[in-house]
């Protein structure tokens, strides 16, 4: 799980049975104490692998939306909740956005957010995210750096400062910071429900090959059987580069849906599966 704190923005991303949405109320209170007012809220997630294990308010998307709306101030009046489907019922993208009237363009036009979710990781590659000697007393930071080197995962953004952690007996999280941009990776390597995610921020003015290089590296590290890519961008067709990058890597686009959200702009959700399937 990861937390990013900017002067006027917080991004928090958690897995497991965490109760992420319960952070809204204390965050709003602390922000208020600093003289800050909420002007935009975005909540996204994929379909849970173990939905019945999730505690309230994550018991259903409907419950989540009700909980968020109960905790948002009334100035965030432009609200939208949608479940974006894919060809696989196990892979839907859940989106809630809310924004106020006075800040219609909180996110600069040039930036996009890319959220990648991968399942059915290659078994051999996933084993690299297990500790070699669990319980040997090595710190998670040091073991995390070893995993970063072993997997080559740091090459997704060679210029970033990395902060990583390896969990005992398995699992890995990594944050990358590069100027004002973040990237983050989370891995659950257990066979049968293996999962990895990659998320980053990019600019439409970046070199067109940058997103291709990132996707190529991510696919090389995990070799997923199924991969979803969600692109949030206010005004650009960056999403068209995704399929062009992934198809030569053996991943075929099975579905692609787009929706518009107040302030956030368009979200494009694409599903890819390995041709070996």
């Amino acid at each position: 799980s990861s937390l990013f704190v900017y002067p006027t923005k917080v991004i928090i991303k958690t897995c497991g049975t965490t109760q992420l949405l319960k952070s809204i109320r204390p965050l709003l209170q602390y922000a208020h104490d600093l003289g800050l007012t909420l002007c935009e809220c975005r909540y996204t997630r994929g379909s849970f692998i173990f939905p019945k294990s999730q505690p309230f308010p994550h018991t259903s998307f409907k419950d989540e939306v009700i909980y968020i709306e109960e905790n948002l101030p009334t100035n965030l009046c432009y609200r939208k909740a949608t479940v974006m489907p894919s060809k696989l019922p196990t892979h839907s993208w859940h989106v809630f956005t809310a924004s106020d009237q006075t800040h219609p363009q909180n996110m600069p036009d040039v930036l996009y957010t890319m959220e990648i979710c991968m399942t059915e990781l290659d078994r051999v590659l996933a084993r690299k995210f297990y500790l070699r000697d669990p319980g040997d007393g090595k710190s998670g930071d040091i073991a995390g750096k070893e995993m970063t080197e072993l997997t080559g995962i740091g090459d997704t953004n060679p210029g970033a400062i990395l902060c990583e952690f390896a969990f005992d007996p398995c699992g890995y999280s990594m944050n990358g910071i590069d100027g004002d941009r973040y990237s983050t990776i989370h891995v659950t390597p257990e066979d049968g429900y293996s999962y990895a995610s990659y998320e980053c921020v990019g600019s439409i003015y970046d070199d067109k090959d940058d997103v291709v290089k990132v996707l190529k590296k991510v696919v090389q590290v995990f070799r997923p059987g199924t991969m979803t890519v969600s692109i949030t961008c206010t005004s650009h067709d960056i999403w068209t580069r995704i399929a062009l990058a992934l198809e030569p890597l053996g991943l075929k686009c099975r579905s692609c849906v787009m929706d518009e959200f107040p302030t956030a702009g368009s979200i494009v959700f694409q599903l890819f599966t390995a041709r070996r399937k």
Partner: protein
Amino acid sequence: MAASGFEGFEKRLELHFFGDDPVSHDNMGLRLLDLESLQEVLNAVQCTIVSAVGNHYFDAYVLSE
């Protein structure tokens, strides 16, 4: 559920704020929150900070779970 406690698919929340005086406190805003305050927020989520790094623009934390 995975033995490590990981479910897989994450939940992601992004909140944007504005202030009347955005340049106050050297434009640090939410970065002025100390670790104790952040941990109080994370207690509600059921996470703790396990590693951290920051630069001129923002702070990044790796969390348990």
